[in-house]
């Protein structure tokens, strides 16, 4: 998200940058664009919060691409948290048929060495974020 930065990449000088990404912005992006945007942000040391999370297929690709980018002493991977998917999903049969994943929920993603989940339940995610 370079357009929202004022002081350049989060290099430890001025705290931790948080990017809150709206559902409308994500809706216009292809799956790999979303993954690239997330990983670019996280690799800069940012915390990325998605208003509406990723589809299962995108989550699968996010794990795969994250693994290919892990590098010793440089990038250890990601910490990711979402609220649990609701048991009584309001996803209609038609939505499933059309491949729409309405069960996606707010998602927090950060560098594995900077974010630690303290508590998580169905409507609260509490995380400790540290600077690099």
């Amino acid at each position, binding site marked *: 998200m370079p357009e929202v930065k004022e002081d350049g990449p989060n290099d430890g000088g001025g705290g931790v940058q948080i990017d809150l990404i709206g559902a409308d912005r994500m809706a216009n992006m292809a799956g790999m664009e979303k993954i690239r945007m997330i990983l670019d942000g996280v690799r800069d040391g940012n915390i990325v919060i998605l208003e509406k999370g990723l589809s299962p297929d995108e*989550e699968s690709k996010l*794990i795969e*691409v994250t693994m290919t980018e892990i590098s*010793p002493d440089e990038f250890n991977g990601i*910490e990711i948290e*979402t609220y649990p998917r609701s048991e009584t999903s309001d996803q209609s049969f038609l939505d499933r048929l059309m491949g729409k994943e309405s069960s996606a929920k707010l998602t927090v993603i950060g560098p594995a060495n900077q974010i630690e989940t303290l508590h*998580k339940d169905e409507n609260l995610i509490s995380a400790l974020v540290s600077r690099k």
Partner: protein
Amino acid sequence: MGLFTELKDSISRVTDKLFSAQEPKRIGIYGPPNAGKTTLANRIARDWTGDAVGPESHIPHETRRARRKENVEIERNGKKVTIDIVDTPGVTTKVDYEEFLDHDMEKEDAVRRSREATEGVAEAMHWLREDVDGVIYVLDSSTDPFTQVNTMLIGIIESQDLPVLILANKTDLEESSVQRIRNAFPQHETIPLSALEGDNMDEVYAKIAEYFG
């Protein structure tokens, strides 16, 4: 033999192959690191073929490549299923080579192991999207199942409409709680077992035959 007869025969061969009940199903054994996936894969392979799949270890990411054991025939309650078992590396979103240093490993070995582990996880995710017909999801019943990786993986499996059998492994441990796993994934049937001790394998085989047959 006329052209028409030859054509009919070759179509018949193709349809036979497509719909053959004998075609082995590729069943991926998935789960977080150290859940006992390889111990289970070896138990199944030894019970039905006499061979093992790969080495087991308490060190995370011992399995760093997806390993396949082909044509494992399982027969239970009159149902027979032929499966290819695919033992996969434990899925995670992070790998830190420094964790391996705690297991008396030199830095060079730890870095190599972590690199292989990341490649293995990427490969396992690819298999899940493209190459498996069903999933056995193995969890360590002595640990909290309510993790992001488990939630995501089960979601990914469900989105692919793959049949999934959840196994609550390590029931031989004192801290084991099968109910905790049932509560975490109530939409799926959970079967308790100890792959190490071979406890409740009869039920596991019956369910494999039922789910993947």
